[in-house]
């Protein structure tokens, strides 16, 4: 039954496809250059899977981790190469521009730091390294592709690649029931959400006759927006809202974050989220989705409020940070309600700054959690400032950034979003944001108070920070500091690529050689 309906549904496309087949040109070198980072990451991911059985479990941690790390660095270099080939590739499916290059960098860097902070963690938790690192790399392929795909179907496939890797990664602490619960919960709800997204894509196709964001934008801009397009926007927003854990699609986040391995939480609270935000920016602004304003307005207000109120009563640091990430998704969504150009730029900066501080915070948490993630409650952090001054100081720094205190990236991120909101006359959202920031300050402060102003409890051990984790944390501290003191260059870059994204929607379609 199903094949028949599919064929009839797409039958009117056949002439076009046939015409295309006649003028078929094989992809050029430039096309491959435009997905070079994805290729590199895939190769390294598969390489790890091949090498894994050859090594015994103990020695594999170090060597596989190193391969994965080299993979991410090669992919960063590949992103540089890719940046020299702006334009579309593979028959208008992928576009390289400032926007996608930015998110490639961001996502790959997040993966690199997550890998670094996993080195010691895997050993302590006795997790097999092979599939773990391979899945991180392959998941990153999906995230990268999400940021550069301009074809909704490809976006969906990329979304699935990244999501499925994350579902599996969430369950890697398989000796612990909470991790399996996290994985299953994430998987079930996640599949449900992607189905929504796919449904939205289908309806958008029905409404506009295309799944290409440029083409959709042209149709929607030409006036006369069909009702179906509104429904499609709403459905796609549901799917993506789940991925970025914005209210009211956020209920999975605390449980999943609590159960999943801490470095993975660091990854999935930033990487797939950044990619999903990239998609959201594309769908909302580049494709000019109709009726987005109130959807986003309500979701942003709800996310900020529910996230912050939920975080107030948490005693588990991972859960607390989960609620905080819901709140931050809300702050980010405020930018989406602003004018396209300002909003895009602010959102891009926010994702980067948030990634630096949140990955860093989870790197500290995962180091401190110890075997079996025993020490993750607020009480375990009592007196950390006395027992491990450096670790506590860095954690406090990340928390200050999450609050939004000056000299940290979080401050500028929030500030820039607030500016965008006020420039777009979103006084209501701006006030909600400001009030929520004040509420938010309280629960981050609770952790700082615990670390510095309570007497240490003797039984909680503080292991020495291994080199890899120290490196990961140091990178995050430096980046958070950089975003907080000299954000100028990044802001210029995001501003420029936002302008490009918003205004150049009618770019030349052919894959022109550089």
């Amino acid at each position, binding site marked *: 039954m199903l094949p028949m309906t599919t064929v009839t549904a797409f039958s009117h496309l056949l002439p076009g496809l046939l015409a295309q087949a006649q003028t078929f040109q094989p992809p050029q070198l430039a096309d491959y250059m435009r997905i070079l980072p994805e290729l590199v990451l895939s190769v390294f991911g598969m390489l790890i899977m091949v090498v894994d059985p050859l090594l015994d479990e103990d020695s594999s941690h170090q060597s596989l981790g190193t391969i994965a790390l080299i993979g991410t660095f090669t992919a960063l270099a590949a992103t540089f190469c890719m940046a020299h080939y702006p334009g579309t590739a593979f028959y208008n499916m992928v576009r390289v521009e400032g926007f996608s290059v930015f998110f490639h960098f961001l996502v790959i860097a997040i993966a690199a730091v997550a890998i670094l902070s996993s080195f010691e963690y895997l050993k302590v938790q006795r997790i097999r390294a092979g599939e773990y690192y391979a899945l991180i790399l392959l998941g990153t392929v999906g995230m990268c592709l999400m940021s550069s795909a301009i074809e909704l179907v490809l976006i969906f496939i990329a979304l699935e690649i990244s999501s499925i890797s994350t579902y599996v990664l969430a369950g890697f602490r398989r000796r612990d029931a909470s991790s399996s619960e996290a994985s299953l919960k994430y998987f079930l709800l996640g599949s449900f959400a992607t189905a929504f997204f796919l449904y939205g894509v289908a309806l958008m196709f029905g409404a506009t006759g295309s799944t290409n964001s440029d083409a959709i934008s042209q149709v929607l801009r030409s006036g006369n927006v069909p009702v179906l397009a509104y429904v499609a926007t709403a459905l796609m927003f549901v799917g993506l809202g789940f991925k970025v854990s914005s209210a009211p699609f956020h209920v999975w986040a605390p449980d999943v974050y609590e159960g999943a391995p801490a470095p993975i939480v660091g990854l999935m609270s930033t990487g797939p989220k950044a990619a999903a935000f990239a998609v959201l920016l594309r769908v909302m602004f580049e494709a000019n989705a109709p009726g987005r304003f109130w959807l986003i307005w309500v979701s942003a207000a709800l996310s900020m409020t529910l996230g912050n109120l939920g975080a107030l009563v948490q005693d588990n640091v991972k859960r607390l940070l989960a609620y905080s990430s819901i709140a931050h998704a809300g702050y980010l969504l405020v930018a989406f309600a602003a004018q396209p150009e300002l909003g895009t730029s602010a959102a891009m900066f926010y994702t980067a700054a948030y990634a630096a501080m949140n990955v860093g915070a989870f790197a500290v948490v995962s180091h401190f959690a110890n075997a079996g993630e025993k020490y993750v409650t607020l009480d375990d952090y009592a007196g950390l*400032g*006395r027992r491990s*001054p450096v670790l506590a100081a860095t954690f406090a720094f990340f928390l*200050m950034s999450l*609050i939004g*205190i*000056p*000299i940290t990236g979080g*401050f500028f991120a929030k*500030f*820039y979003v*607030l*500016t965008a909101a*006020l*420039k777009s006359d979103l006084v209501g959202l*701006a*006030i909600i944001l*400001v*009030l929520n*920031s*004040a509420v938010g*300050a*309280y629960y981050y*402060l609770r952790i*700082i*108070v615990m670390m*510095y*102003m*309570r007497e240490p409890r003797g039984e909680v051990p503080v292991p020495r920070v291994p080199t890899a984790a120290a490196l990961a944390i140091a990178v995050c501290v430096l980046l958070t500091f950089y975003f907080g003191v000299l*954000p*100028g260059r990044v*802001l*210029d870059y995001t*501003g420029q690529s936002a302008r490009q994204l918003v205004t150049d929607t009618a770019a030349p379609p052919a894959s022109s050689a550089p």
Partner: protein
Amino acid sequence: MGSVNMESLSPIILSLVTFIPAAGGLLILLIPRRDRDIKLFAFVISILAFVASLHLPVHLHRELGPFGFEIDKVWITSPNIHYHMGIDGISVWLVVLTTFLTPLCVLISWASIHERVKEFFILLLILETALIGVFTSLDLFLFYFFWEATLIPMALLIGMYGHGRRVYAAVKYFLFTIIGSMFMLAAILWLYAKTGSFDFVVIQHAIRSGSVPGFENASLWLFLGFFIAFAVKVPLFPLHTWLPDAHVEAPTAGSVLLAGVLLKMGTYGLLRFDVGLFPEQAHRNAPWIMVLALIGIIYGALVSLVQPNMKKLIAYSSVSHLGFVVLGIFSFTTAGLNGAVFIMLAHGVATGGLFMLCGILYGRRHTYEISEFGGLATPMPKYATFFLVTVLASVGLPLLNGFIGEFLVLSGAFQARPIYGILAATGVIWSAGYLLWMYQRVFFGKVTHEVNNALLDLNLLEKAALYPIAIAALVMGVAPMIWLSAIDPAVQAALAPFTQLASKVVGQ
């Protein structure tokens, strides 16, 4: 030769003064944990900052334009944020006050801080940079940046090194201040959205020339947005409740800087930004603000009168004194404003000194209860002398620094409305009452508790910390013109829009 040097120093001196302490704080990170070295290093750094800051008042008169030693560099192009610093006759003394008190804080903490010494002095020096930055910034963004940057070091100083209920006090202080300043941030961003600039001078000019769209309707809210942030900091009644807690629990150095400088951030902000940017709203709202200030003066004094705890008594006396400052500012008279600025400085010196003296006593007896003492003049004569000088300075005895400011503010208040002056004058009487009564109970009579007989008098370090306070109190009282001659032109400039306002009314 000398003059050439001075001129080449002029554009960078403010940055130097501002960032010497923080740079020193970062260097302490690298010093191994030998407490004595760290303390010595922190002292040298803070003295260095003080010496550098003395350049400012000495050469300010040579600078042209409303702000001296200006530096204006683009920090971030979009949003349009400048690294714009500059000082006038008001802020210059607040900078010097900060750099003057910090070395004394280092000295007074020498013996009392044993644990986590490294962190303590790092926080203290970073706090100093943030405080100086607040007074030197002319870009609203930069100002907000430093304003918020004072928050964490101070909260940590209270929470990590304070006494019994330190965590409660630190969190309360933090939340009060951050919630207040959120409103200011919103107001700053509104101004930026409409004018495209964070620059104080540019925005002020835009507002005065009436080229800000929608300003008429928004000005009241903008005024209040700034006002709430500053009123919490001052603290103005009824937002003062965090202050006694913070003071009582803070370590001595924290209390000194809190009373000496942090509270002045609020009054400075009121004068520079609330009055400077929104003169009409300030004028319109002055009556109820002055009433709040009067309530603060009298209420603070009455509560001080009944405090059994020495430190809390001084904390409430700050509420009372800062009420004078607000009263002076919103009297919009030359005398009132001059007096307000002078009280800021005098209160910084005198109350800072009182907190140091309290801290010294606490180091020996581990209590602030007045009833635990009595007859201390016998075992500690030098201590008693210093205490008397500082108390008299705080009370406002002529020839000491408290008198000048209070006198000017009172005469300003009389000009504005006689009843305000009369009510405020009772505050002076009250303050004599509670401070002298406290002095009598602590120092006069016979030693009532046996332990107090064995109390040691001041040691060398403590004397080194207290002499500058006593000398400053005396010099400021005898030769106030040194300070007022710089303050007055700045105050006149701040008052310029009000004389226009007044002449408008007369003209009609």
